């Protein structure tokens, strides 16, 4: 598979602080590549280095097989960026904003007009063309931010946390749009600290923490990295100490934790956990509201690798 981005040994210091530490990643053509990590893990810094916006101390960066540099306009023409912070002119309306940024790439007026309309359609902003950014809700503003970054139909798109502070409905619309762009042929680099999003759309994922890669692979292969196989959650009254001790004796149990009206039993890999738990509850005449089973998430992977939660 052709590699669109290759980064070798990237190291970036802010003063003495190492924000990215000897990072090596590659992105294959036609994929949605996910860069997952908590706040401050170095996702934006990595992207800004790849884009040649930041000076870095060490490392080699190639895009489409060429060395990226600020003067490589041919390369820049193929790239679209949606930055983490919304970057639009408050003085211009939705249409003019998209048109301005698209115009930095596309000279021909007719083509540009069509491209701008396409971007508006993709982000479903048809009804807001004449609106000023200040008149848009948070979700719409994010969509405008995306439209400004991708209107010129780039082959490679960077999206840095494009869904921050967006309600679930708008978020889904955005994710669908990204998948559409990918289906239309664009390779995508997507960063987020929402593991659900990354799980939902990304093919290959790299998990960052403190500027270092702590895990990489497909979401399936990442989940195999956890020792955890299944988590069974029971909504019930707090069991007494004796019962808890009984729970802890169950085979393959890694952890039993009661919190907020729920008992969570984490098991290592193995089969048929749910029936044996239900049997145990019956035997001890314990009543419960609900019982359900969870498979490991990327959060569990992160938790196990770093000892802390991914979020916050």
């Amino acid at each position, binding site marked *: 598979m052709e590699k669109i981005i290759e980064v070798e040994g990237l190291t970036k210091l*802010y003063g003495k602080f190492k924000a990215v530490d000897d990072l090596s990643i590659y992105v294959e053509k036609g994929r949605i590549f996910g860069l997952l990590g908590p706040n401050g893990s170095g996702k934006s810094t990595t992207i*800004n280095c790849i884009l040649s916006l930041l*000076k870095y101390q060490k490392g080699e960066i190639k895009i489409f097989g060429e060395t990226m540099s600020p003067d490589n306009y041919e390369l820049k023409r193929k790239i679209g*960026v949606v930055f983490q912070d919304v*970057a639009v002119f408050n*003085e211009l309306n939705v249409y*003019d904003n998209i048109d301005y940024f698209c*115009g930095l790439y596309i000279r021909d007026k007719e083509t540009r007009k069509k491209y701008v309309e396409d971007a508006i359609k993709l982000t479903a902003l048809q009804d807001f063309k004449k609106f000023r950014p200040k008149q848009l809700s948070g979700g719409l503003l994010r969509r405008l931010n995306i439209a400004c970054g991708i209107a010129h139909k780039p082959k490679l798109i960077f999206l840095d946390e494009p869904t921050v502070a967006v309600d679930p409905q708008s978020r889904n619309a955005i994710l669908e749009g990204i998948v559409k762009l990918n289906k239309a042929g664009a390779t995508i680099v997507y960063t987020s600290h929402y593991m659900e999003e990354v799980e939902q759309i990304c093919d290959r994922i790299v998990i960052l923490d403190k500027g270092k890669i702590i895990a990489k692979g497909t979401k399936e292969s990442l989940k195999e990295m956890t020792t955890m196989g299944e988590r069974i959650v029971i909504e019930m009254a707090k069991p007494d100490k004796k019962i808890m001790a009984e729970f802890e004796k169950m085979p393959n149990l890694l952890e039993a934790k009661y919190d907020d009206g729920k008992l969570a039993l984490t098991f290592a890999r193995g089969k048929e956990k749910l029936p044996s738990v239900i049997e145990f509850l019956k035997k001890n005449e314990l009543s419960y509201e609900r019982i359900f089973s969870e498979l490991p998430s990327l959060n569990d992977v992160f938790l196990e690798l770093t000892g802390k939660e991914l979020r916050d």
Partner: protein
Amino acid sequence: MFWHVFKTKLKVLLWNKSCLFWVLIFPFIMAILFNAAFSGLNAMKESKSSKVAVVQDALSENSEWRMFFKELDKHKSFEISFTSAEDARKKLDDGEVQSYIDFKDDKAHLFIKENNIGQTLIKNALDQYAELNTTAAAIAQTSPEYLMREDGFSKIMTEDFVKDDNTEHTDFTVNYFFTLMAMAALYASLIGIELTKNNEANLSTKGARLSVSPTNKTMVMVADLLVGFVVCSIQQLVLYFFIRFVLGVQMAAEPGWTLLISMMGVLAGLSLGIFVGASNKKSEGLKNGLLISVIMLCCFFAGMMGDPILRDKFETMMPLFAKVNPIAAIADGYYALFAYNGDMEYYWQAFARIAIFAGVMLVLSLVLSRRKRYDSI
């Protein structure tokens, strides 16, 4: 691409409220306030012209003193009447005059009841006249006929003594308006800051967006300069006509040359703003505040506030700064046109001073705009 950027940035600028206020509205408000202040001052002085009685007992019909006071009487600040010593004293007691002057041994003595500005003015005039009397005596010996002429020496001297002329806007009030126009030109720097913010990746995400696009940043900077230049040049032209025709201040009659040095001032302001904007990562508010303070300080040293005498004092105290001060340079250019006597040398000197300032700022901002990668954004 150039015109695409130009058109968009022009639109952005014309919708930017804070820029519009400082650049397109504030100078006009200042002009109106200045005008009101000066007219108010003049009206006050006029209504309070000081009544002075002169004891004529000791004065011969054609004496120098008598001529001096006749000239002084033409001046709006004073109302001179000739009378006897006794009558003068009575008038002062009754408050009909604020002061009277008597002569002993050919020296003038001023009698007053209370001290006020009118009395100070006449005292000054008397003192200076007395001082120059020796000169007068010298002239009297060589060319007495000149001294004796109605419009001769005494007229020249009264004009000298009474610096505070009350005609509507005289030489020094007009300087306030010149510094005001210069200030308005340099306020273009606020536009420079605003536009730069949108171009530098370390100042805004819009700048980052520009930086990742296949666009030459210097080209964008030139387009920005042109936007600011067009808007501010129009402002200068309108301001000139506003001050001259709406406020009725006597300005240089030639709008062409005025606009030329104004445009150089605008260029200086814009590039100053771009330089300050791109040179550091401090907040826009801080940069704006800094520039406004510096411009105001330059205005102060160019004599915008307070006594115009101050300006000359600063000039002798800090001759180099007075030369560099862009406000002073532009105002000097206007003044050269205003006091035009067929010689443009002083105008071109002022023009060269502001042009050098603009050139240095322009080079500095070009250097900064060529920067491509940042240590941090």
